[in-house]
C-alpha cells in the first residue's frame, strides 16, 4: 500500500498509513552507520519533514537547508533514540528545533507568538463560517497567510501523521493547549477567508 508508483489520482495517505513504516529499527541501523537505512529513513520521512518546515518558513531554500540539517542531526544522533516517542514525532521535533534556531537567528519569532496563537479569536460564529463557503484553493491560500504558530500546528495535526498527544510532545505544550491553538488557527483562517471574501 505504501508504494507510491502511481499515476494520477494521487493517494494522500492519512496517518494510519504513514505510521506503518515508522520503524525504530531503522534508527538503530543508522546509528550503526548503515547508509541504506539512512536513505530509507530519508525516503520515509524526508518529504513530510520538508513540507512541514516549508509550511512554517514559507521559503524553499531555507526549508531545504533545515531539512538537511535535520537529517544530519538524525545521522549523528540516531543511536540516542530511546523509543520514547514515534520516529516521526522525533524527527519532526528535531526539525522544529532547527527551524526555531534558524528563525531566531533572523530575528523572527515562532515560539513567542504562541501566546497570541492560543487566544480565542473574535471571528464570526459557527453559523457564519467563511469556511462553509470556501473552495479548497482559497483555503490553501489562506493557510499561507496565517501566523507561523498557526501554520505550524495545522501542519503537525494534518500533514505530519501525528496524533494530538504527539503534536503536544513536539510543541512541548499540553494536549489541551494544542486543541485551543488549533481552534485559534481555524478562527484565524476563517477571518482571512472572510476578509478575502469581502474584498472580492
Amino acid at each position, binding site marked *: *500500500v505504501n508504494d507510491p508508483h502511481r499515476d494520477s*489520482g*494521487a493517494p494522500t495517505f492519512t*496517518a494510519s498509513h504513514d505510521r506503518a513504516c515508522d520503524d525504530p529499527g531503522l534508527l538503530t541501523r543508522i546509528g550503526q552507520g548503515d547508509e541504506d537505512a539512512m536513505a530509507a529513513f530519508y525516503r520515509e520521512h524526508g518529504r513530510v519533514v520538508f513540507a512541514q518546515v516549508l509550511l512554517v518558513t514559507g521559503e*524553499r531554500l531555507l526549508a531545504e537547508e533545515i531539512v538537511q540539517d535535520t537529517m544530519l542531526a538524525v545521522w549523528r544522533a540516531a543511536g540516542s533514540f530511546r523509543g520514547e516517542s514515534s520516529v516521526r514525532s522525533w524527527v519532526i521535533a528535531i526539525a522544529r528545533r532547527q527551524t526555531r534556531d534558524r528563525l531566531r537567528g533572523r530575528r523572527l519569532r515562532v515560539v513567542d507568538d504562541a501566546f497570541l496563537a492560543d487566544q480565542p479569536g473574535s471571528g464570526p460564529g459557527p453559523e457564519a463560517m467563511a*469556511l462553509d463557503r470556501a473552495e479548497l484553493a482559497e483555503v*490553501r491560500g489562506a493557510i499561507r497567510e496565517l501566523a507561523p504558530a498557526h501554520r505550524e500546528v*495545522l501542519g503537525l495535526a494534518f500533514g505530519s501523521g501525528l496524533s494530538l498527544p504527539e503534536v503536544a510532545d513536539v510543541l512541548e505544550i499540553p494536549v489541551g493547549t494544542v486543541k485551543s491553538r488549533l481552534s485559534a488557527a481555524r478562527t484565524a483562517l476563517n477571518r482571512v477567508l472572510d476578509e478575502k471574501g469581502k474584498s472580492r
Partner: protein
Amino acid sequence: MKADHADTHHPHLDLGLLVSHAAGQPVSERVREHLARCEQCRREANRWNLVADGVRGLAAAAPETAQPVRRQNSRRRVPRPLRHGIELVGVAAALLVLFLGAGELAGFVHVHLSTSSTGQGTALIAVTGCSQVEQADGTLEQVNGSSLVIKGVTGQTVTVRTTATTFLSMSGALPSEITDGASVTVRGSRSDGTIQADSITVGQPSSAVSLPGSAPVQGTVADASSSGFTLVTSGGTRIPVSTSSSTLVVIPHATPGQLQAGGSIVAVGNAGSDGTLAARAVAALYQFGSGPRLAASFRVRDCSARSIDDALGAISAMPWG
C-alpha cells in the same frame, strides 16, 4: 464525547475527535454513527476536513527536495549516506510530484475501509473542493441491472445509477477472473523465466488505472490454475506466470453484472433530486484478507469527468489490505 467511548449523554463530538477524524486517525464506529446523525457535528467535521485538505494540498504541492542544498559559506560536508538519501528521496519526490500531477489541486475523495464496515456514515458525502460532486461508499448490497445499492456504515442505503459511460472498475483478490482466453497485462518480477505477478490487469487497460512495477507483459491466459497460468504473447511465446494471494487483479472496464455483493465500493458522481447518485466513476474493491482499517485520500485535479476517473482509477490500483 471522549475519545472512542461515545457518550450518549454528551450531545456533540469534542474538538479532539473532530481533528482526529479529519487527520485520518482511527475513530470508532460510534463516532462515525454520531457524525451521521448529528448535523452540527457533521458541519464541524466538514470544516475541519477542509482545513486538513488545505494543509495536505500544500504539502502535496511542496517542491521536491532533490536539489543539492545551495548553502553559501558552509564548512560542513554532507556525509555520503545523506547524499545518498537525498538522491533517493529525489527520485521518490519526483514520482510523488508526478503522480500528484502538476497544476492546481481541486479536491479530494476520501476513502475509509475497514474489515467490519466502510464509509463515513452518511449515504452521500461531498467530494471536498468539488461542488456538485458527491460520493457514496460502503458495502455493495445488491445489483439491479445497471443500478447498484450501496449500504453505508449506519445502514443507510443509496442507489447508484451507472450508464455505458460510467468508469466502472473492480480490483483486489480476484483470481477467479483470470480464466483461459482472457487478455491480460502482467507486472511483476522474473525469476528463472517465471513472472511472479504483483498485479494483473484483465481486459483492456485504462489510462486511469496506473499500476506500479516493471515493464508489463501482455498476452492471453492459458492453463489457468489457482497458482498461476501460462501467458501466451502475440508472438506465441509462452511465459509461466505465478500468482499468489497478494497478487492484485484489476479489471478496469467491469460491468455491473460482474460485481459481487459484499465487497467495498466507492462511487462518485452527481446527486439527483431523488437521492440517487448518477455515477461518473465506480471502484469496487475486494480486499486482501482481513487487514487493518485503511484510509486514504485521493486527489481530484479539476473536478472534471477525467479527473474523477483518474481518482477512482488510483483507488482501484491500491492493494487494499
